[in-house]
């Protein structure tokens, strides 16, 4: 057993932290919450030039050929910095599925653009039932000549308003099981009949209502096999849950560190509040949440990278950190007192993101159900 990171990973860690500390100040984070687009295109280009967006893609598409664990390292630092923008949407929700199941032509058309920072991708999965199960996929795609025609509303679609390509999940056949008859389509974000608007969310991230009115998609844009999309979705949900867990990990770590600093500096009753036993116990509990999360996160990411089945491990970490990050931020608020819940304090950014992260691709209840299934229940 060797639980250390490679030299390259350590370097990635350090360079990501330095870069984001410099390029992603909290003033920018707050501006992007209000901004319609929700990201800074110049910064996106710089990240592409650093090879971050292409990180997990093979070199022949302009990527870096790194593993999921490397991606996790980067995502932790993004979470620490509260980096706004369509990184998980583009790389994990859009890019990885195309890499895994796309035709060579689809990969050639899209992945180099992604790696260069010229294409933003996303996935349109959830509908107004707001659930991640197969029965909730109700939107139909109907064949018509060389095309499929899709109409209906998708909800909570991250970054759809700026996406160049959207992977749309639709029903192509009514079968006995809701898991059958689902197909994935790569839809041009500028197609006639597509309209989007951004919803007001707790974390100011950019989740959209996406309406499709008789949107035509060429049959060549089917991703993977017709009617067999649900197995792909299950994988994508796992990747997304793991990627978000990494981002949440970095946020939780940052919150723990800033709260320790505050407890040492803040003086009440003639002593630092960190000298009070109750505050020490709070911080000790927070450290348990943070340190336990990290090992399980890295284990799941390592397994995924090694090709070892890890459905359970991914649900363990997402189920755990969904509540752990919330506990950590809530406890941090208690220690910070009133100053922490003002709009000007960094802590509130993390408190709101902890909740958004919890909801993203399965909350704790959702992942506990998967663990229950893995137990054979």
């Amino acid at each position, binding site marked *: 057993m060797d639980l250390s990171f490679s030299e390259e990973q350590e370097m990635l860690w350090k360079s990501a932290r330095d870069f984001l500390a410099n390029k992603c100040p909290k003033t920018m984070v707050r501006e992007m919450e209000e901004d319609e687009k929700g990201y800074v295109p110049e910064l996106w280009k710089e990240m592409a030039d650093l090879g971050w967006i292409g990180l997990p893609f093979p070199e022949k598409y302009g990527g870096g050929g790194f593993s999921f664990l490397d991606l996790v390292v980067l995502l932790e630092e993004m979470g620490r910095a509260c980096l706004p923008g369509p990184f998980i949407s583009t790389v994990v929700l859009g890019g990885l599925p195309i890499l895994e199941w796309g035709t060579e032509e689809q990969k050639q058309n899209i992945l180099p653009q992604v790696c260069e920072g010229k294409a933003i991708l996303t996935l349109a999965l*959830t509908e*107004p*039932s*707001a*659930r991640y*199960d197969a*029965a*909730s996929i109700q939107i139909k795609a109907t064949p018509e000549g060389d095309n499929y025609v899709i109409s209906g509303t998708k*909800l*909570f679609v991250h970054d759809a308003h700026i996406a160049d390509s959207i992977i749309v999940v639709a029903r192509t056949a009514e079968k006995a099981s809701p898991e059958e008859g689902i197909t994935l389509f790569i839809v041009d974000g500028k197609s006639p009949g597509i309209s989007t*608007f*951004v*919803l*007001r*969310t*707790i*974390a100011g991230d950019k*989740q959209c*209502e996406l309406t499709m009115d008789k949107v035509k998609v060429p049959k060549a844009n089917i991703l993977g096999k017709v009617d067999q999309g649900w197995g792909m979705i299950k994988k994508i949900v796992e990747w997304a849950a793991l990627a978000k867990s990494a981002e949440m990990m970095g946020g939780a770590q940052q919150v723990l560190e800033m709260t320790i600093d505050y407890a040492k500096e803040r*003086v*009440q*009753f*003639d*002593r630092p*509040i960190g*000298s*009070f036993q*109750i505050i020490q116990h709070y911080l000790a509990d927070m450290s348990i949440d943070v340190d336990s999360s990290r090992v399980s996160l890295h284990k799941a990411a390592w397994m995924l990278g090694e090709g070892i089945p890890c459905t359970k491990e991914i649900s363990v970490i997402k189920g755990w950190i969904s509540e752990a990050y*919330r506990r950590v931020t*809530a406890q941090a*608020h*208690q220690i910070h*007192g*009133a100053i922490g*819940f*003002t*709009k*000007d*304090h960094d802590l*509130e950014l993390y*408190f*709101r993101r902890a*909740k*958004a992260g919890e*909801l993203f691709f399965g*909350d704790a*209840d959702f992942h506990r159900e998967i663990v229950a299934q893995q137990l054979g229940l």
Partner: protein
Amino acid sequence: MDFRFTDEEEAFRKEVRDFFEKELPPDWPGVDPDMYHEDSFEEIHQVSQEMQRKLAAKGWLGLTWPKKYGGQEAPLWKQMILEEVLTYRGAPGYDAYSFLGGCGDLILEFGTEEQRQKFIPPMCRGEVKWATGMSEPNAGSDLANLQLRADLQGDYFILNGQKTWQSAAHHADYGLVYCRTDPEARKHRGISIIIVDYKSPGITMSRIVHMSELGAFNEMFYDNVKVPKENLLGELNGAWGLVMAALSHERTYGVQLIVNIKRDLDLLVQYCKETRVNGQPLAKNALIRNELADMAIQLEVARTLGYKLNWMALKGLNVITTANQMKILGGILTQKLAILGMQILGLYGQLGPAGGNWRQMDEKKDKWAKLGGRMKHLYLSTVCNTIAGGTTEVARNAIATMGLGLPREPRPEKK
């Protein structure tokens, strides 16, 4: 023993219910007893002001206070029923800082005859709003560390310094301001309470915005503010005894918090009955049933403790332990309810208008918000319920030392 209310009490409860039935729009979603909505949004403030005048016309402001100051000399149980009904209905216009916050009670108890004559009748007429100036940047839990100076010069106190977390100060006419009047004395022996006209020259304030986007708090700066010396409340340098009285008034606030979120629990129950997911009502989901029932148990137990607290107050018993227990329960259970609400709403939970202001729902951005974005709002706003008005940690210390007789934590050696 008899847990029932008397016929007279039930009749008054009905009278209050009927009043709000008539006076509030049927779709009024309810404001919280912290008054943050009323203090943050002008249009809700206006509704609140109007209701304040109507409550005054009913004689329900200062219900228990002496008639000679504009009160009704009604028994305390009446006020408790009034507060319970209006809190459950989410009614605006009951100035927490005059009544629940204890400014009125403190003036009646410790004020001079002139002060009572001057300040109490306008409260009963619903013409004024009050605030309390306690916290400062370096005086939070350690309130006795407050530094705002009030120096007696001739017939005036001259106030210099800063207060913070001043709820409602921007709407307030007056405040009870805790000032350092003897810098040489030991920390808590040199503090006085002074009644300050918040429109006085030399006072400036700036709004602090809460993460829920409510702007109900203020930072206040005092620059040579002149206050007539007759505005001293109680003894010079004698505030500490009054602080304890004031904080115990504020801690009965725990009951209000519990009553208020019973309304939110009822909302969630209704939502689960009406909302079907994949053909099945949420109310049939075993996990959700369990969570809702668990929440109902916790609220019921806390509410019943609240009745005991009221009964103890009616009997004139020492309520400091129970009031602190209620304060802690109120804070924690409001947060638990918000977490549960978010869990039930799932992805929808994260949607809702800024500050939970149902009057400013955007037809697109907030189109999909459920329950008017109430759970998102509660999730953010309840963070301060275990902090404001005394943190749960300070309340636990009070229970441990004053209630359970445990020794105080040793103080560090003075350098």
